[in-house]
């Protein structure tokens, strides 16, 4: 009973240490394990795969460093997919702290594929206003983004001259850590019929499933697992895939903790 009490009332710093080790140790080995592809991720992949070369894909960076470990791998994977298919990428964002990550990702992946700024991709940067921009871009993108993030007029980029509103955007991918995913679906998808794929953190992903079931979005890439699945479909395992062993073991560890704690709880209750 004393041992049981000690285990149930264990100092939380011991649990902190254990969870730290459970994550740290698997990462040392950089093992990439194959993973089952879920239907929502497969749908997202196939939606982009089906786009003809030269199509315009708008990627909205609606995440920031607080969710970068989940969102950055899926953003990089989407960029790789777009550049591999010779799709034109237009990046913008509504989260101020996230737009630099968008630029970092573009710089890294464009170099891998030899893509040129202004010819193959453009970064429109950040504008405040969220829903106003989402609705306003349905008429004219230039009303909000007359310039790119460097202040260069977007009409100086060849492929942007024909891009005015959602009619000229074949697919919109929102990489979201909050409610922006739902806003894009409600303001751009419902109003203008814009095709949308959502990449979201694990916190937001469950709320997005109703949109998939109702047909309002084409696919969901949910959390680091979703990013790992997308990397596998691209045959390009990266950070998300490397994180899977640590994620697996930590999930099992937390379930083990919950079971242990409840066993202790029931034993205590019975003894009373």
């Amino acid at each position, binding site marked *: 009973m004393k041992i049981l009490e000690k285990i149930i009332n264990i100092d939380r710093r011991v649990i*902190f240490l254990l969870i730290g080790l459970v994550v740290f140790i698997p990462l040392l080995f950089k093992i990439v394990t194959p993973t089952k592809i879920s239907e929502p991720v497969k749908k997202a992949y196939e939606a982009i795969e089906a786009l003809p070369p030269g199509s315009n894909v708008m990627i909205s960076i609606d995440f920031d460093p607080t969710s970068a470990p989940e969102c950055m791998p899926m953003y990089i994977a989407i960029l790789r997919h777009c550049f591999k298919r010779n799709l034109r990428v237009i990046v913008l964002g509504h989260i101020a702290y996230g737009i630099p990550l968008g630029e970092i990702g573009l710089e890294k992946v464009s170099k891998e594929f030899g893509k040129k700024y202004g010819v193959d991709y453009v970064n429109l940067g950040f504008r405040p206003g969220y829903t106003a921009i989402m609705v*306003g871009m349905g008429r004219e993108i230039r009303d909000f983004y007359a310039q790119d993030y460097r202040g260069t007029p977007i009409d100086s980029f060849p492929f942007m001259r024909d891009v005015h509103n959602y009619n000229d955007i074949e697919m919109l991918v929102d990489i979201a850590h909050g409610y922006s995913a739902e806003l894009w679906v409600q303001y751009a998808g419902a109003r203008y019929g814009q095709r949308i794929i959502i990449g979201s953190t694990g916190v937001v992903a469950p709320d997005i499933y109703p949109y998939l079931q109702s047909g309002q979005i084409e696919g969901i890439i949910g959390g680091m697992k979703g990013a790992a699945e997308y990397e596998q479909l691209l045959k390009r395992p990266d950070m998300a895939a490397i994180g899977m062993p640590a994620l697996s073991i930590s999930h099992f560890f937390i379930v083990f903790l919950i079971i242990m704690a409840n066993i202790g709880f029931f034993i205590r209750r019975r003894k009373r």
Partner: protein
Amino acid sequence: MKRGVPLIITFVTGVLIIIAFFIPHKPFGNLEQRFLIWYSIVAGFTMLLGIDSLIKYHIRKIRFREKGWGYSIVTVTGIVITLIFGFYSWYAYHTPLALGSPFMWLYTYMIVPLQSTMFALLAFFIASAAYRAFRARTIEATLLLIAAALVMLGRVPLGEALRLKLPAIANWIMEVPQTAAKRGIFIGTYLGAVAMSIRVILGIERTYLST
């Protein structure tokens, strides 16, 4: 002026936006687009509202040597350095987001580690909370824990390797009962949002006018 004019502004703008949805042609559509651009401009200034009270608070702490005033110096220094780096980068590189600019250096090596580590702490707290607080006291709590365990185990490669159909169960939970419940919850939420928005437009709800 203080209450009447703002209520009229709210009413006019709200009604215009709704009318412009049904009549997107001139003048409503054009006026709507103009207002949306103005909204974007004004929304930027809204982001600045908090910094004034923050600076005043920390300057006061430093002036009167209140407890923790040393940390206030750190905060004010952080503000000053960011402003210098940011405006210099904007001036020299035409954007603060230029890779290689001082602002991006600050972002990459200070903002990213600080922000992301703050939230990484949650991993430790969620593990601790799972152990110390999640008890199957009632049938509902037991259901919650079982669903959580199935989803957690089914959504990782190790769970897939066990060959217990955990991934299929987890995916089914997400796509069917979870979707149904979330949809039910959010239908209620959005009905409330519609009601609240109409109350705001009509001036019945006025809490946003408090200064």
